[in-house]
């Protein structure tokens, strides 16, 4: 399984219009393949939408996309209206024990943590991650842990749903106090860290 993250930066104020157009067109798109999630940015770079498409492999992606584009109702057409400033597509693989959550309600707030790893250290980092992630999930669910296969390399992202910032603070405090999180030795492999707070679109399978 691969996950394509498509990140579009929109013109300021365009998000409501784009969600409306995307939501309407997605009704026609989803018979070819379904979204894993669709978010807008609440904190971080603003006016961004992130849509996540799962595929069995790159060939499956090709097939689905070439079929979908023949549909007169797809793509949604907001790019032609000049509402998109920048587009980025990245392909991720799932980290060990970090499968994407099944559709459902977990949020409403999602934290996306984005780590740039030191070159060549991803295998070692994934090993440490695998050894600690099950314990961390006892404190709160993980939406997914993924690493890049195509696009910006050495990138590891993990996404966590929370009820609120206070819930997040409480979970993190407990996890740290347990002495099992963050996993020992992991920070040595991390070069840069950033995070964003995401809000699900009305039609996102993850809410």
């Amino acid at each position, binding site marked *: 399984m691969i996950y394509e993250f498509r990140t579009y*930066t929109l013109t300021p104020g365009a998000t409501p219009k784009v969600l409306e157009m995307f939501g309407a067109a997605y009704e026609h798109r989803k018979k070819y393949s379904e979204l894993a999630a669709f978010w807008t940015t609440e*904190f971080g*770079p*603003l006016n961004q939408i992130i849509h996540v498409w799962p595929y069995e492999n790159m060939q499956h992606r090709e097939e689905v996309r070439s079929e979908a584009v023949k549909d007169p109702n797809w793509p949604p057409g907001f790019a032609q209206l000049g509402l998109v400033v920048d587009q980025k597509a990245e392909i991720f693989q799932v980290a060990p024990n970090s499968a994407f959550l099944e559709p459902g309600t977990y949020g409403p707030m999602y934290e996306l943590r984005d780590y740039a790893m030191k070159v060549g250290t991803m295998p070692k980092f994934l090993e440490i991650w695998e050894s600690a992630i099950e314990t961390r999930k006892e404190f709160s669910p993980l939406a997914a842990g993924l690493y890049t296969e195509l696009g910006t390399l050495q990138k590891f992202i993990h996404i966590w749903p929370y009820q*609120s*910032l206070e819930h997040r603070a409480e979970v993190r405090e407990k996890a740290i106090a347990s002495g099992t999180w963050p996993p020992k030795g992991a*920070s040595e492999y991390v070069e840069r860290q950033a995070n964003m707070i995401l809000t699900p679109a009305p039609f996102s399978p993850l809410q």
Partner: protein
Amino acid sequence: MIYEFRTYNLTPGAVPQVLELFGDGYEYRKKHSELAAFWFTEVGPLNQIIHVWPYKSMEHRAEVRAEATKDPKWNPGLARLGLVTDERSEIFKTAPNSPFAEPGSYGPLYEFRDYTIKAGTMPKLLEIWGDNVHIRTAFSPLTSALYSDVGPLNRFIHIWPYENLAHRTEVRKLTAASGKWPPKGERELIERQSSMILSAAPFSPLQ
């Protein structure tokens, strides 16, 4: 009055140690001049500290800094300990009707909104902002709004304290419902927007 924003990127995990070192050093530094605020990033680029130093002028800044460096107790030694990966210094001026908040407790959550404005449009933006900001501050207080004078230009930042995210959501819903905020004509001048959540350090005058 000018405001120097010094933004340091730290090595992953270094924030607690840096706050301690800086807090100790600041006891000696503050007799030369005091901070306006000191934050670290909670959401956005992580492992970042932002210290804000007000000065009467660039000459005043030079004098204070020349004096402070002579103090053996100042210079927290962060860079020497290898805790800093990157440093940035920028000079900002306050926008009309947007003075920096006096020391006090307003947060604990601070939203830092960072806009890049289309080149040449800052005077127009400041005019719109200055005429309308009272509409917005009727709903919740503003820490300050500032524009860049030295550093990346065409930058407009505004900082808002909230009790929590729910409080922010409520305030933003009310302001949107008023139909008067954001002020008309502002959106057209904006090129890019991003937003971070900051937490105040224990020794920050703004809490």
